[in-house]
């Protein structure tokens, strides 16, 4: 008998615990239900939309949606930030195929964009006839066409270029380059380096910029006419050799593997004067503009990305239009989303300019954007060279190398810069990996 009493007590407890939890969890559940945008039962309720993007909300997006929400009480947009890394993209892709609301999202990478289109997660924009994308965004937009259709609206001009510490260049009597090859690049770095200053710093794996840039004219997939990889060529070998020499002969560039495993903040190195040149993107603006936290005395100038050889005529600069906003086909409010996206592209994204984002729409008040970009810090830039690079007419292109090849090739670069592979071997290895993946994709 006593046994039974204890058994009942035990069972009661086992039932009670989950029940108690259920009570607690149900509240959480209701909370979500209440905030979901499907709640627009009454006609007076505003439409609620979510926009997923990778820019931290305080760096512009929050201001953008606040402006919109003030002007459009009937369509309220919420910005959701995701981190643009593997896990963050997986989160977005999971959310897209779930029953949860993601109405609009920004693509930053062609192969993910393409994948989302194939998975049916991006709306074909040709159904909206009121907006001519090619006309608005210029010919660069066409790079984002898949099967001759737009599944997202490119909104900004992204670009990789070389940031220069003008004072250091002046001290050595070096002019701001307007066109250069890797030999000149190396020469600059060697002259500018000193005991405590690197000649050059560059974003991780940026040696693929000149390598890929030399191949894009042939095909955006970086293949030869016969469909095989174009990586194994003299320009690749030369690039690897020059970079190797900068790291280990001239010691003007931090060895690649040391950089990727100690992850220095390159933008801070630049503003602190620890490197004379910085090969990166317009993301650095946020740091160079922040003279309160990163006071600097020198002027910032800019040069285009180096070609492999200065006289190379088929070189395409890495960049082109980006920040491609797509609509989730399962959203209940396609028209409203499209309305927001147009507004964003043609003027609404202005607050993003402070972080270095150059709008691509021709309707955009460019002067206003530029003014905002350099507001209060005009004197600390060599504006001529910056404008030349950022708003000039360099041939821009966007490689469509698949992500997998890109990632797997990183190991080859690591090996090339730790003397596990000679530049020639590395070029062959880059091509091998690429060919393997091309074969797998064509299956």
């Amino acid at each position: 008998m006593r046994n039974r009493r204890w058994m009942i007590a035990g069972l009661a407890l086992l039932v009670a615990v989950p029940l108690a939890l259920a009570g607690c969890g149900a509240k959480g559940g209701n909370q979500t239900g209440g905030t979901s945008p499907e709640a627009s039962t009454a006609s007076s309720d505003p439409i609620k939309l979510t926009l997923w993007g990778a820019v931290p909300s305080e760096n512009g997006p929050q201001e953008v949606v606040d402006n919109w929400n003030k002007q459009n009480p009937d369509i309220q947009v919420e910005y959701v930030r995701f981190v643009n890394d593997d896990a963050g993209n997986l989160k977005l892709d999971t959310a897209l195929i779930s029953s949860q609301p993601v109405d609009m999202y920004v693509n930053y990478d062609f192969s993910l964009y393409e994948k989302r289109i194939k998975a049916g997660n991006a709306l074909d924009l040709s159904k909206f006839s009121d907006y001519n994308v090619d006309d608005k965004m210029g010919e660069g937009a066409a790079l984002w066409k898949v099967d001759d259709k737009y599944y997202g609206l490119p909104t900004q001009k992204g670009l990789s270029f070389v940031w220069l510490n003008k004072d250091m260049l002046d001290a050595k009597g070096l002019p701001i380059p307007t066109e250069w090859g890797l030999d000149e690049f190396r020469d600059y770095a060697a002259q500018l380096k000193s005991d405590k200053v690197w000649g050059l710093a560059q974003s991780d794996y940026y040696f693929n910029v000149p390598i890929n840039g030399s191949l894009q004219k042939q095909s955006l997939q970086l293949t030869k006419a016969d469909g095989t990889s174009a990586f194994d060529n003299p320009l690749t070998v030369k690039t690897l050799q020059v970079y190797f020499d900068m790291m280990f002969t001239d010691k003007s560039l931090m060895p690649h593997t040391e950089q990727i495993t100690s992850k220095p903040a390159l933008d801070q190195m630049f503003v602190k004067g620890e490197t004379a040149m910085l090969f990166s993107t317009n993301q650095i603006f946020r740091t160079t503009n922040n003279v309160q936290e990163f006071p600097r005395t020198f002027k910032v100038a800019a040069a285009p990305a180096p070609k492999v050889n200065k006289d190379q005529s088929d070189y395409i600069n890495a960049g082109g239009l980006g920040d491609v906003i797509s609509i989730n086909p399962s959203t209940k409010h396609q028209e409203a989303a499209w309305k927001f996206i147009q507004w964003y592209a043609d003027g609404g994204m202005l607050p993003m300019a402070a972080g270095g984002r150059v709008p691509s729409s021709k309707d955009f008040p460019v002067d206003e954007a530029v003014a905002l970009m350099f507001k209060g810090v005009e004197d600390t830039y060599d504006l001529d060279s910056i404008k030349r690079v950022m708003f000039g007419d360099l041939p821009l292109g966007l490689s469509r190398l698949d992500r997998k090849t890109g990632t797997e090739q990183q190991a080859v670069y690591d090996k090339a810069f730790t003397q596990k592979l000679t530049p020639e071997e590395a070029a062959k290895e880059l091509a091998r990996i690429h060919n393997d993946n091309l074969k797998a994709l064509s299956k």
Partner: protein
Amino acid sequence: MDTRNIRIIRERVIKSFNTIIMTLASLLLLSPMIWMISTSFKKPKDVFTYPIQWIPHDPVWTNHFKVWMTGDEFALFYFNSLKISIILMIGAPLLAAFAAYGFSRIPFKGRDGIFLLYLCLMMIPPQVLFVPKFIMFDWMKIYNTHWALILPGLFTVFGVFMIRQFFMSIPHEISEAAFIDGAGHFRIFFQLFLPLSKPVLATFAIIDFTWTWNDYENALIFLLDKKLFTVPLGMQNFMLEAGVDYNMMMAAATAGVVPLLIVFFLGQKYIIQGFSSSAVKG
């Protein structure tokens, strides 16, 4: 001097020596936490300096202020994390102890087989389960709710295993004596084993709390709604497009450590109080 005094002195010397060695060793392991706290008081430009500033030269409070005050609802994230972690800290050890008793003290057919299956489940790499779990959670309608973290968190192989090992080492004479007194398994479990296993329950509760509190990936994949976010997801805000905003992130991380320390110091009492005192009570 008599030998007793010499012995006492010798023991004191050895004890002091041990203390010094242990302090030095622990400081090495403590260094990440010191760095975390000191970075939370740094200006951005002082984060990447060599040699490291273990004590910021120019300390500022603004990072901590910004974490709590600007933009996102860090306090809400904090509350969510607390809610989930506390539920699991209580629920998971209880459920685990229950199963552990079954696995260690009651002979039944297939027991060891089932237990090995448990261990096998522990060996499956989590990365590959995210997508199957997501599909299941979406179907169960618990995707994007706290349930997606609470329900799976309640059932841990680790806890069952840990507590089972403890139960195995409790002398059989103790439960046999109770049996003779007419007590059944449930009574033995609640009146004898649970009080006896305070140290191991407290240890597991601390570990489980820490896991849940720091769990980033499950929360990342299974929660979409900002109102449901936990502290590790809040820290995402400080992952910028190019690199990590270390001083802000460490300010958030420092704030995040406080509950862990509280749980640890509360739990440590039970860990150390230990066997002898509870044996008396039991």
